[in-house]
């Protein structure tokens, strides 16, 4: 029983990490209509940026900001110079998926000679232990939960109460109509890539902090968990992604306690398959993964 209580604690941290990643991923898809399979690789690149900042003797919290900035700029450039031109050319959905997969392969392999094959970890004190009724977490892990909660509230505020958020929702619903209403959709989409890129970078650093060590090969795993949460919640739905993250985070950690930790991603995949069979549209979306009617 204690094992499961402790696992619940780790689940809280896990869902925070997944939520940051999944909300960024799902917003990219929902607003720019781009399934960015390079997302996991951008996460891991940002984690490495934070690693080098951290290695230079700066605390990891500054490294986190550096990672977020890197993720924002990198994603923005990726869209500007690769995705957007292809989309303008009229490349099909499937073509875009293939392009993003090629980009993902390129990022991973350009990074490999620079950072090496070996796993690295941040050099930072993990902080003291905090205990609360069987749950044992380090102060760093508590801080990760805090960061995630603040970010989710900020995203909520952005989407509900700002002009930019309103413009984003309009662009997501119907880009042509949004442009006809005088919304500068191009600039909105640029802003989306910057914001979601920052979330992606942050998620990468946080995910790397939460695992003992990380290497390039972790990128695929990061992508799978974010994808699973996003699809579970209904693709393109930020609130759905939050719910998806809570479920995936809890289930994967509890299954790690009950079964075997190396199968965490397999469990995430199992949930993904179940969702695709039973409710392809996800928990919140009306259409989601279902085939378009025409």
């Amino acid at each position, binding site marked *: 029983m204690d094992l499961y209580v402790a696992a619940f604690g780790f689940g809280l941290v896990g869902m925070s990490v997944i939520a940051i990643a999944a909300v960024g991923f799902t917003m990219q898809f929902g607003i720019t209509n781009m399934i960015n399979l390079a997302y996991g690789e951008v996460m891991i690149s940002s984690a490495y940026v934070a690693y080098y900042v951290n290695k230079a003797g700066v605390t990891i919290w500054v490294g986190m900001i550096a990672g977020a900035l890197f993720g924002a700029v990198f994603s923005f450039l990726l869209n500007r110079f690769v995705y957007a031109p292809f989309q303008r050319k009229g490349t099909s959905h499937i073509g875009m998926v293939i392009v993003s997969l090629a980009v993902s*392969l390129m990022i991973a392999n350009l990074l490999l000679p620079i950072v090496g094959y070996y796993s690295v970890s941040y050099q930072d004190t993990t902080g003291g232990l905090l205990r609360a009724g069987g749950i044992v977490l380090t102060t760093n892990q508590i801080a990760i939960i805090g960061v995630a909660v603040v970010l989710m509230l900020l995203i909520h505020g952005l989407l509900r109460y700002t002009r930019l958020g309103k413009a984003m929702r309009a662009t997501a619903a119907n880009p042509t109509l949004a442009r006809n209403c005088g919304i500068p959709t191009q600039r909105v989409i640029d802003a989306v890539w910057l914001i979601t890129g920052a979330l992606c970078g942050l998620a990468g650093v946080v995910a790397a902090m939460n695992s003992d060590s990380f290497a390039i090969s972790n990128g*695929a795993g990061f992508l799978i968990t974010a994808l699973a949460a996003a699809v579970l919640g209904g693709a393109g739905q930020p609130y759905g992604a939050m719910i998806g993250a809570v479920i995936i985070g809890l289930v994967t950690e509890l299954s790690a306690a009950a079964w075997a930790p190396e199968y965490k*991603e397999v469990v995430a*995949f199992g949930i993904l398959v179940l969702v695709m069979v039973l409710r392809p549209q996800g928990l919140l979306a009306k259409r989601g993964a279902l085939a378009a009617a025409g």
Partner: protein
Amino acid sequence: MNSYYAANLLVYAGVDIIALLALNLQFGVSGIVNFSFIVFQAVGAYAAAILSMPPDYAQGYDFQVYVGGYQLPFPIPWLGGAVAGGLLAIPVGLVVLRKLRSDYQAIALLVLSIITNEVITNARPFLNGAAGLALVPPPFSDVIDPNTETYQYFYVAMTAICVVLVFVVVNRIVNSPYGRSLRAMRERELAAMAIGKNPVQLKMTVFIVGGVIAGLSGAILVGFIQLWAPSVWLYPETIILFAAIIVGGRGNNVGAILGALLVPVGFEEVTRFIPSSFGPPGLIPALQWVAIGLLIIGFLWFRPEGVRPEPRHVFEGAPVREDLEDARAT
């Protein structure tokens, strides 16, 4: 030139051609983005391996653990590999191809590929985990000594027969009325449905046929290289095959063969001549992958139809779009 090298090259080329003909049928002709294609090849290889290997407690094999080990004679492992590929396609197809939108299908298959590899790597008792299976007996190894030149060319000949067989079968499918239905589905699913085609049925059939051929290609490969491990079927291997299809020409079987010779075979051969001492360790393979990525993006941008574009299937005497536009202009 060393004859082993030549035989090696020819068998690899044959296996890649078979695999690409299958992928072209799925992706090029029918528009199914099978990002877990390599898994079907892997299943065929594993099936062929355990069908031809002795049980894992046999002398000389007791350093590895695996299920099965039936020591069956030649055609059975290859047929078994093909059947295994087809059998795997049924549950995967039922989950993925029925309701999902095409881009979700692609994602689901990609994730499946990553996860399957992870499971096989971690579940050691099943297929010996990350170390993989070694000492897979080559076909007819009890009749002819596999370490002779004759055997090498014998293997090349067997591969060539399979290539011809697969080419004939796939060509028949592509150029038949059935192939026309597949292309109609790829171009506009709704229109294909309107004239009474059942896209789920079409996709499932193509998925299974492609799975069978992919399984066969894996069986041929494992009989030749005699080992099979998770590291040889990581998901980027599928991306190489997609690059080959895109370069060769989507929907064109000759293009698929050309793509096989240009991308998987050509790349390996070209980089063989770069001294391995060049740059830090691992630089050359990494740059090879970057080049594959650039190849895909470059071709999709500059020549999306590939080197050998798909032939336009037009009935003799039927008005084509250009004629109609000309007629309207005059």
